[in-house]
């Protein structure tokens, strides 16, 4: 099984603080993976490095069949290569309609001149309708995203990620601030997404991770602490020490 994303020996420090320390990580296609770890374990920095927002001090990040290095690519190029990212706080374009948000996210040429020539087609309209329906915003398509409720914005952002059709989806704490029913819904969605693409969920809610029922990677102080099924890592004495205190 060849890896879709392979991170090897990556380190990054900010003003002497080692956020990521010689971290290696790999994920295969159509895999669901949870990354857990206490605050400051380097989860967000890890996502920043993969998406190109932060350049690591050392190490290598490789992507896809040809093992292209992501380190020399910009955020936009990485996104176009097929890595989508869902932020912790919902970030949608609040001044624009749900439809415009989704159209922007639709998989299509991204260059300025290609976008200038772009016209809505029957296909694109149908796709936007489908996506809106899938995330429960079919009735709100003309509304401005800024008027949506917090939960609806979360869903709109997920809809935009779906529209992007990424091969790897990085999801940052999806369960934060959600009701129980919404969590249930989110779990189902993530599991379904993982059937067609790789999904990495960063979370520190153990209950939520248990529900995902997938392989778990535990980070601590920027390094890999343990990896395996949730039951396996929960039994690891190091993990217990980190989570329960010494």
């Amino acid at each position: 099984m060849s890896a879709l994303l392979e991170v090897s020996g990556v380190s990054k420090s900010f003003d002497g603080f080692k956020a990521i320390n010689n971290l290696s990580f790999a994920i295969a296609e159509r895999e669901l993976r949870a990354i857990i770890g206490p605050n400051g374990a380097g989860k967000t920095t890890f996502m920043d490095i993969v998406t190109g927002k932060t350049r690591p001090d050392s190490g290598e990040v490789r992507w896809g069949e040809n093992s292209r290095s992501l380190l020399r690519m910009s955020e936009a190029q990485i996104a176009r290569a097929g890595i989508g990212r869902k932020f912790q706080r919902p970030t949608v374009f609040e001044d624009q309609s749900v439809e415009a948000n989704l159209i922007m996210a639709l998989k299509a040429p991204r260059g300025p001149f290609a976008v200038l020539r772009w016209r809505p087609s029957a296909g694109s309209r149908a796709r936007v309708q489908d996506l809106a329906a899938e995330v429960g915003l079919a009735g709100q398509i003309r509304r401005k995203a800024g008027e949506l409720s917090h939960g609806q914005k979360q869903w709109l952002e997920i809809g935009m990620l779906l529209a992007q059709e990424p091969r790897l989806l990085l999801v940052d704490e999806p369960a934060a601030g959600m009701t129980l029913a919404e969590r249930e819904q989110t779990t189902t969605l993530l599991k379904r997404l993982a059937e067609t693409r790789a999904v990495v969920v960063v979370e520190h809610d153990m209950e939520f991770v248990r529900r995902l029922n997938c392989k778990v990677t535990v980070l601590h102080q920027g390094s890999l602490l343990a990896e395996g099924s949730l039951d396996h890592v929960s039994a690891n004495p190091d993990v217990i020490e980190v989570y329960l205190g010494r």
Partner: protein
Amino acid sequence: MRRIVFCLLLLIAGPASAQDLGAVLEVSRDQIAKPSRQTIGPVIDEIAASGAGAVTFLEAWGDRRLGLTAEGRFAIVDGEATIDAVTGARITEEVDLLRPNSGVRGLIAAALVPAQLADPDPVRRQAALDALGRDATPGHLPALRQALQDPDPGLAARKARLERLLTIRFDPDPAARVTAIDSFDGDDGTDVQAALSPLLATSRVAAASLPETANIAARLSPGSDDLSPDAAYRLLVDAGLARARLTEADQKSALAAHIEGDQVAGVPVADLADPAARDRAYAALAQAGTLAPAATAEEVEAALKAHVFADIYAEASPEVTDAARAALNDMAFRKRVQQGADLTLDALSLASIYFLAAIGLAITFGVMGVINMAHGEFIMMGAYTGYVVQTLVPGKTVSLIVALPAAFAVTFLAGVVLYLLVIRHLAKRPLETLLATFGVSIALQQMAKNIFGTQARPLTAPDWLGGAISWGEVVSISTIRVAILVLALLFLGLFLFITRRTRLGLNMRAVTQNPGMAASMGINPDRVAMMTFGLGSGIAGIAGVAIGLFAKVTSELGSDYIVQSFMTVVVGGVGNIWGTLAGAALIGGLQKGIEVLNPANTLAAQTWMILFIIVFIQFRPRGIFPTRGRFVEG
């Protein structure tokens, strides 16, 4: 004894065939009566060589005490008495005093030098040395060498120096001259320069071949940077080696003079807009013999090929010119080093002004992320406050001492008011703040114009700040600029003290780093921001007084400095006083540095400096000392 020495000296200095004074005067009476600087030289030399009475005669002539009687006898007027110049007999008749001009008197003084050099009176010896320094002839060198001994050590040293200088100029032996040149190593005196420079004088020559003996400075080929083909050909024409060329203007006027009907030599006038047609017409006229044929392009080329061109030293000895060139190069190098030092001072002073102007801006930008476009107007307000205080308080020193805190107070208040009325309501909207403060800026500028008028107001520095401090001839800095440098350093210290040692500084740093956390620790961010803004504005006011001391106080004073202040902050990096300092040093130094490369053009210096900054931002987008950390990414 004295007379004997004079005679001896005069014998050495003067020409070999010495004549009796009376005879000399007899022959040259008319020339002495109406001397001209160009022709009188030999006569003076003859007189000087004529022995007894010559010195007295020359001194009287130079002092305008020499006269002519009606029958043509020379008479010397000495106080009440008048005596015959040759015989020494008393004269009672009317004497017509001669009035030699200053040029002639200079020659006379030079002729007297040898005698005066040995005069027992040190004042006279000194005067003789001065005269010799100004105007020496080859003959003076042996005279001076004879008189090198001097009881006064100062004069002895001067004589020795002058002897070496004259050796450079007049000694027949090249080796001695080279030794003398080398002996001045490290000496930048203007007298040395004056002795050396003429040795390197060249003349440009064109000839079929250069003489073997010529001391060639440089061979030139026509068409090189030093010698254009046109200039080379002109040399040939001037030397009579080639025929003059026809200029376009000459051709045109020649053709115009030969218009017959609507044709010139068979070529229609209307066609003459074409240069080729003009050439045809001229050639036809030349063939007909109406006009002199002109040198053709081929002729010119052949002539240029057939001749050599060179710059030739007037000085024959290559050793001497080489030594002189080396010495002058060394001198020029040392001068450049001094200019470099002077430039560093200039740059330092400019940097301190930018630092003063920018520090307030850096505080507000660093702590609050706010660009205050009215900052320049706060500088202006400070300067006008200084002006108003000076009109109210007598005494320049006292008024300056009052003006500094007054300017701080006025602009501090203005800053606080601006904060409370505008900036507080635009929190987290720096672009809108920029525009709103621009609105304030144009309003303030116009108000200043309405109140104080458009003409510049004086803000005079006290006398003790009026002078300049200088080292050597080149390096100097005006006292005001030193004071501003000191003021800038004081503010650096004050700022460091405030941020590191006071409550406000602690609060400021807390609010900068994490406003939310600071607020939850009981710090009122609003109040801290207000104080910070006031502080930054107050410093702008003081900078205004400082700038007003050397620049004109007008309503545009602030806007002259505002862009440079922005640059300083941007280049230095936000939120770091050392960054501001480095930014100011960089910008000040750069501006002065570029001015040196193109001294006539300060505008170009500023243009290049800004371009440099734009490129600099490419490589250090966050300035020299960027604020770092996880939370400022992006």
